[in-house]
């Protein structure tokens, strides 16, 4: 092993650092035209008519399309995950049209597409379109949406309820356990709607090649093959083999680029009609209005404890906003990615989770970094920290008392939860121990007490989280409503000279697959990293793929690569045995050569690969070539975990929260590239902290997004954050060949409640016994809370 476990510098960096990255909007083709989407300025309105005559006549305009131009058969973009009502009825799944025909349902809903010779002309022409709207009352709150008389987002969806859902132990059992508990902590809170805000705005280019009647879609996506499948089979009815989808360099995703968006289908549909390539690139304000948002939960939860501090029961009731339409995987987020995580790291014997998903006149919600697990973690970690304050016990000790004992998933069985999962492996005390040591816990408490005596407000907040990555296996997720498989594919193509091209169905948009995957391949094959090329993101190169989300790439995609490497080496051994006049069982493979055990007779990998393609002296009956594909469908999810600690200081005069330190000890299983894993954690922390302190999609009562720009929506900037203190423990995943769990979302999952808990702790220590401050914890909100 020469590469795995080392902080190898990234292969992809040179092109990005030299400005040679190729993002979708960087692609310029002969005859390129430009699309602009005219969007609704209203959250809820009937369209009486659209006058496009002036726009069509504007010089430089090639076409203007409205909803009625889209064929009736094209209902819109589909939802890929079905959740049924408690009574067994199928969820309400109203169509999400490519362009609205009759009623707009959120600010930003697409009304017309203008295609012109250049961007500015398309935008000029959009100003000439006259849409006659009848503005309707809007509903924006996920809970208020269910109230009698609330405006209906979809006329045929009563009470705006998309579905309701329940998991865990019977409610009566949980209620009985809570009734007999020595202490019950109850908390009602909002996990606010936030906006992912990848810095690259979404973009799509549609191309129709008349010579072959073939389409190409370039799109800023996390999963090109899935977009192809959804668009071909469920939207436009195109033959899949006549459509190529490319996700080139993609400037961040964080979930928001998983989903199939209307603009992708629009540019493909229109490209054949006008016979020229069409590029659409979102302006930032469009990204705010149309990229899928995250979170949006309104929750009431109760956690009961016995006299000894052991958790006896948890009841959670949540209204989950879906926005105006069901986005690609939205129904899975508050259910199978949230309710199933409410065991946390604790031995809670009775858990019931109840979710009502509702439509609102806001942008659709879907998976955003963590997708359901941040909401679950926030719920659990806020409750247990608040319980510690209420019961006047140490929050670290209270957690420790409730931790599930260690299990490795090999000698000890995986832990079976009350909410449908079996954890793979876990060892929870060491992450807490390490984090406490890093923070200097005892000293901090002394410092905090001294500060309080001087009128200064310092606080410490904990979060000990578990999450679930690499959602799988396909049959299980299918039974839970997924309308897709969740495996991954990989092709390992050995060239005659021994160079290796690996085609992975995973997609990198910042995660560094070109480096991490090459480390795995080089080590497993015993060849230099320079001899390995990782190819991803193009459906014409990569046979199939499920893409990158849910921290799955290495655990699922990496495992598929390992499977293909095993096939390569197995075949290689047969060829080597022939060349060495030995048998495969008598050979061992190391450092790029096969050696007859106990001898110095060997043959190099490159000689074997050359023989495979020049099979003159070759084993009888063996096919030429050295090129293997594999599909890997995992046995289970993986379950990373960790402990995050925030230390804050609050200005008592203004309520401003200053995040002084942030400690994160994460266990993501085995680590291939520690530099990249740390980077993933850092980025996740910033987003999680951003939700706690800065970020919220703010709608007024008319459904207007009132902070839909970077001038108004606050994300953390460099001077809002401290340098992070990160470390890890390693508990390997027992069921995949690399022992890896996934690191992409952990930082975002654990950090938010740690920051909020720290603020609440500071206020309690200062004599303000506040249960909750609504996120983001702006100075105004903190100051108000301190006024009693």
């Amino acid at each position: 092993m020469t590469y795995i476990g080392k902080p190898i510098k990234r292969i992809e960096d040179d092109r990005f650092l030299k400005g040679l990255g190729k993002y979708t909007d960087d692609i310029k083709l002969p005859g390129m035209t430009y699309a602009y989407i005219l969007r609704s300025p209203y959250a809820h309105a009937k369209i009486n008519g659209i006058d496009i005559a002036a726009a069509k006549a504007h010089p430089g305009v090639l076409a203007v399309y409205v909803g009625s131009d889209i064929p009736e058969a094209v209902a819109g973009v589909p939802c890929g995950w079905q959740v049924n009502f408690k009574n067994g009825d199928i969820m309400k799944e109203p169509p999400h049209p490519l362009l609205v025909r009759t009623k707009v349902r959120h600010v930003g809903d697409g009304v017309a597409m203008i295609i012109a010779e250049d961007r500015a002309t398309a935008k000029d022409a959009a100003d000439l379109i006259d849409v006659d709207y009848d503005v309707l009352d809007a509903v924006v709150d996920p809970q208020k949406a269910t109230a009698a008389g609330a405006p209906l987002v979809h006329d045929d969806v009563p009470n705006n309820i998309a579905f309701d859902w329940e998991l865990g132990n019977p409610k009566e059992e949980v209620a009985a356990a809570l009734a007999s508990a020595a202490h019950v902590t109850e908390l009602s809170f909002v996990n606010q709607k936030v906006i992912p805000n990848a810095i690259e705005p979404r973009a799509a280019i549609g191309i129709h090649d008349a010579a072959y009647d073939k389409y190409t879609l370039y799109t800023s996506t996390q999963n090109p093959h899935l977009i192809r499948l959804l668009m071909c089979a469920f939207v436009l009815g195109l033959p899949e083999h006549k459509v190529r989808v490319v996700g080139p360099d993609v400037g961040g995703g964080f979930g928001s680029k998983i989903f199939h968006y209307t603009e992708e289908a629009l540019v493909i549909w229109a490209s054949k009609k006008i016979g020229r390539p069409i590029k659409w690139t979102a302006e930032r304000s469009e990204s705010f209005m149309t990229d899928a948002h995250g979170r949006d939960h309104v929750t009431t939860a109760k956690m009961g404890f016995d006299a000894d501090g052991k958790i006896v029961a948890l009841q959670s009731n949540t209204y989950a906003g879906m926005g105006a339409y069901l986005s690609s995987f939205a129904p899975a987020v508050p259910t199978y990615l949230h309710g199933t995580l409410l065991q946390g790291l604790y031995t809670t014997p009775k858990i019931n989770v109840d979710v009502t998903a509702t439509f609102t006149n806001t942008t659709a919600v879907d998976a955003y970094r963590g997708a359901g697990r941040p909401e679950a973690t926030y719920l659990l970690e806020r409750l247990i920290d608040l319980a510690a304050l209420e019961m006047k016990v140490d929050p670290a000790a209270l957690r420790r008392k409730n931790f599930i004992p260690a299990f490795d998933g090999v000698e000890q069985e995986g832990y079976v939860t009350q909410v449908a999962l079996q954890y793979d492996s876990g060892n929870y005390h060491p992450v807490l121990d390490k984090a406490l040591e890093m923070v200097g816990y005892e000293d901090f408490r002394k410092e905090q007490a001294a500060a309080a005596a001087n009128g200064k407000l310092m606080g410490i907040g904990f979060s000990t989280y578990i999450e679930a990555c690499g959602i799988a296996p396909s049959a299980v997720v299918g039974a839970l409503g997924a309308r897709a498989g969740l495996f991954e594919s990989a092709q390992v193509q050995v060239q005659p000279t021994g160079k290796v091209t690996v085609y992975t169905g995973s997609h990198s948009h910042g995660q560094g697959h070109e480096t991490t995957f090459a480390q795995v391949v080089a080590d497993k094959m015993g060849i230099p990293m320079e001899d390995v090329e990782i190819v991803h993101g193009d459906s014409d190169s990569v046979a199939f793929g499920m893409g990158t989300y849910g921290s799955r790439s290495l655990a699922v995609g990496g495992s598929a690569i390992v499977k293909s490497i095993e096939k390569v080496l197995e075949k290689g051994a047969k060829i080597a045995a022939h060349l060495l006049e030995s048998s495969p069982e008598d050979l061992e493979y190391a450092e790029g050569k096969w050696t007859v055990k106990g001898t110095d007779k060997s043959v190099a990998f490159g000689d074997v690969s050359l023989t495979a393609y020049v099979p003159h002296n070759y084993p009888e009956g063996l096919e030429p070539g050295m090129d293997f594909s594999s599909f890997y469908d995992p046995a289970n999810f993986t379950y990373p975990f960790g402990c995050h600690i925030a230390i804050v200081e609050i200005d008592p005069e203004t309520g401003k929260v200053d995040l002084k330190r942030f400690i994160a000890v994460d266990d993501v299983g085995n680590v291939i590239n520690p530099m990249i894993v740390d980077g993933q954690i850092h980025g996740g922390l910033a987003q999680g902290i951003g939700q706690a302190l800065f970020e919220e999609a703010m709608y007024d009562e008319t459904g207007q997004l009132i902070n839909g720009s970077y001038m108004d929506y606050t994300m953390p900037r460099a001077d809002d954050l401290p340098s992070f203190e990160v470390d890890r423990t390693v508990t390997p995943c027992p069921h995949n060949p690399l022992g890896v769990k996934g690191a992409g979302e952990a930082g975002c999952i654990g950090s938010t409640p740690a920051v909020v808990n720290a603020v609440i702790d500071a206020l309690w220590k200062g004599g303000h016994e506040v249960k909750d401050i609504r996120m983001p914890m702006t100075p105004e909100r903190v100051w108000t809370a301190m006024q009693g």
Partner: protein
Amino acid sequence: MGHSITLTVNGTSVTKEVEARELLVHFVRDHLSLTGTHIGCDTSSCGACTILVDGKATKSCTMLAVQADGSTIMTIEGLASNGELHPIQEGFKENHGLQCGFCTPGMVMTAVDLLQRNPNPTEHEIREGLEGNYCRCTGYHNIVKSIQHAATKMNT
């Protein structure tokens, strides 16, 4: 209606016709095909379009192309010399100061200006100096380290 402008771009003199309303960033990307300069917002908030105009870090979406007539600009494509990374680019590579790479050109060009003005910045000064640039991937931790790395290298 075109206006002829002449400016020096990455060491080469360029003369082009532009529309009066055309932003410098569109000129750089669309007319010069220098697509390393990115557009991340429409409010001059994200800094992805930062280039050097007469040596100063400038958000190229805040200037019209005609305003750049006669000036000297450098984009990310002009920073490496003979294929060798500039110390700031090297700092980013050595310290994993980039992930998706989209904000990176703007970050690097901002850092060039920052270290010109202050060759020995403290961590706090670096963080303040990056206030005009959003990064959504790195949490800024490694960007700060990258610039510290570059400062050390450029001072020795």
